[in-house]
């Protein structure tokens, strides 16, 4: 089989905008589409969502499939799964990608089950490559790369014999492509047939807490771990971060200890970041934390334990107590900047 179907990105709507992970996927999707020589499309399910199609075109979508219906105004599993499954059956894409967000991880498995196709969760990289099994060589397959076993291994998964190949992809690990203003594409309106579908799950209340910190956009992140010792010590991180125009991050241990809110958590269960400079203060560098920050441009580690794993991936290190080193660093910076 040499004829390939399209690559699709499920365009998630977050507070009325396209979720950044969906834009990241358009960037990666474009790379994959070039290898396969196929178009890149986005699938947009919502209500009065037409303006968002232009955002998707600007970020690289050749086609946008738009399902616009009042019953799709808010995400609920069954109507969205039904519309998307029908569309996949109709158009037969080669690959469908979703953000590994709570929504993506609710929707994608349901769709995969209906289609009886493969799905790989929470990928951190995607490539096109070959797979060999039982003397058979499968070409141009989606290699779905993801950490497993608490980040201790990296697995490469393929779905050699089924279509579409589907994956959810972790937020923040791929780059948002530069938008091209005025770039257009083909808009395909998708009929929505939910007439016999009673709303099984009804949303009674929905509250959104604004993002208090956006770590993914930060150039410099000053992050604290359990080694900060106390909630009060995080004031030092705040001071250093504001001096550098950066943001404050944290390890899971620091969040669990109540030093700082979960919004600030970096790592496998928090945010994946790749700032220009990551300053790890009192962070030992458990594999789950490293998974979320090791692609940073430069890493500075400050820790009392010279054998802490964080020093294995750091470019610069100071062996010492953060509560003594940080005030010196702040003082030295005030002199320099």
């Amino acid at each position: 089989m040499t004829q390939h179907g399209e690559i699709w990105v499920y365009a998630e709507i977050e507070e009325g905008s396209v979720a950044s992970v969906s834009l990241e996927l358009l960037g990666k999707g474009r790379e994959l589409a070039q290898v396969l020589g196929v178009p890149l499309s986005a699938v947009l399910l919502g209500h009065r969502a037409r303006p968002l199609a232009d955002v998707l075109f600007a970020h690289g979508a050749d086609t946008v499939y738009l399902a616009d219906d009042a019953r799709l105004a808010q995400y609920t599993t069954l109507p969205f799964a039904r519309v998307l499954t029908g569309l996949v059956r109709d158009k037969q894409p080669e690959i469908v990608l979703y953000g590994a967000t709570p929504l993506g991880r609710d929707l994608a498995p349901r769709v995969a089950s209906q289609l009886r196709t493969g799905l790989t969760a929470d990928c951190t990289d995607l490539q096109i490559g070959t797979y060999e099994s039982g003397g058979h060589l499968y070409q141009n397959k989606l290699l779905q790369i993801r950490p497993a076993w608490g980040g201790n291994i990296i697995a490469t998964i393929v779905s050699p014999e089924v279509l579409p190949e589907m994956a959810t992809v972790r937020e923040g690990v791929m780059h948002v492509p530069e938008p091209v203003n005025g770039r257009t594409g083909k808009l395909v309106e998708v009929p929505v047939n939910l007439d016999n579908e009673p709303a099984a799950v009804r949303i009674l209340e929905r509250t959104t807490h604004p993002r208090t910190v956006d770590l993914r956009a930060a150039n410099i992140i000053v992050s604290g771990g359990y080694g900060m010792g106390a909630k009060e010590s995080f004031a030092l991180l705040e001071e250093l971060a504001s001096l550098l125009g950066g943001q404050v991050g944290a390890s899971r241990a620091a969040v669990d200890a109540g030093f700082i809110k979960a919004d600030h958590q970096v790592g496998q269960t928090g945010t994946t970041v790749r700032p220009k400079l990551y300053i790890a203060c009192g962070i030992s560098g458990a594999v789950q934390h490293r998974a979320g920050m090791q692609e940073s441009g430069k890493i500075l580690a400050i820790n009392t334990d010279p054998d802490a794993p964080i020093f294995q991936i750091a470019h610069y290190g100071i062996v010492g107590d953060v509560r003594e080193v940080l005030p010196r660093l702040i003082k030295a910076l005030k002199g320099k900047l």
Partner: protein
Amino acid sequence: MPLRVIVLAKQVPDTKNVTGEVMKPDGTLNRAALEAICNPEDLNALEMGLQIRERYGGEVIFMTMGPPRAAEILQDALCRGADRVILLSDRRFAASDTLATSYTLAQAITTHLSPYDVVICGRQAIDGDTAQVGPQVADKLSIPQVTFVDATPEYDGAKFRILRDLGRVKELVAVAPPVLLTVRRTANSPRWPSARLVLKYRRARCAFDIETEARRQQTRVDELLERLRPRGLFIETWGAEDLNADLSRVGISGSPTKVKKIDNVVLKGRDLKLYGADDAGVRDLVAQLVEERTFG
């Protein structure tokens, strides 16, 4: 009306508790050396099931699919208060991905455990971290799902009111049974096994154990079963035939995803440049970062 609650669980390697002893000399993980435990969020699922039973009446059935050894988590579930436990185990179930696993679990539910009201799973397992089996079981059962549940639902006799925690968004939803829930670790604190139940169930065992025992004691399996069953010490064990399973949909043949390769994560070991912790060291570091334009 009493509620029938089915909790689905998985025995997993304890990947969160990686100590030096399970690391190989080359810095990679010795996977065989990890302890096998009940997936932590599946204990939250069991706790939620037990709370539903205590508030609204009914029974809690705790089921897993896995090798014979997975009966360990079933015995533990009996000691924590499950009414009935079931092991799905068959060589042909081996190497199942999430699609084949969800088919097998759903098949067991539809063939032997219907009608039911609630199916509860942990949000995700700590070995694969996929969070896919719950929604896929719901799909196979053609029932709605509510994922990321953060508190034991309230039930008014017709509908559940359920709180979901999606990170920045919290949702309160209403849904009528039957429904499948996936539970976050923050939903509750799992209770410990009770001493009374441990005494009662510490010798509970599955069909595989009983076959071995019968061979060793040179008795008949059904004789042993006759003794164990009335005391609740026989862990029901079902294979592919018991489930009336389509063999093309279980195990490796029912699994569309294949592992192409596994790479061990090895710490890279960069060229680390160390600076002193004193004023002079810190000043040198700042000078370096300014010079290479990492600052500013």
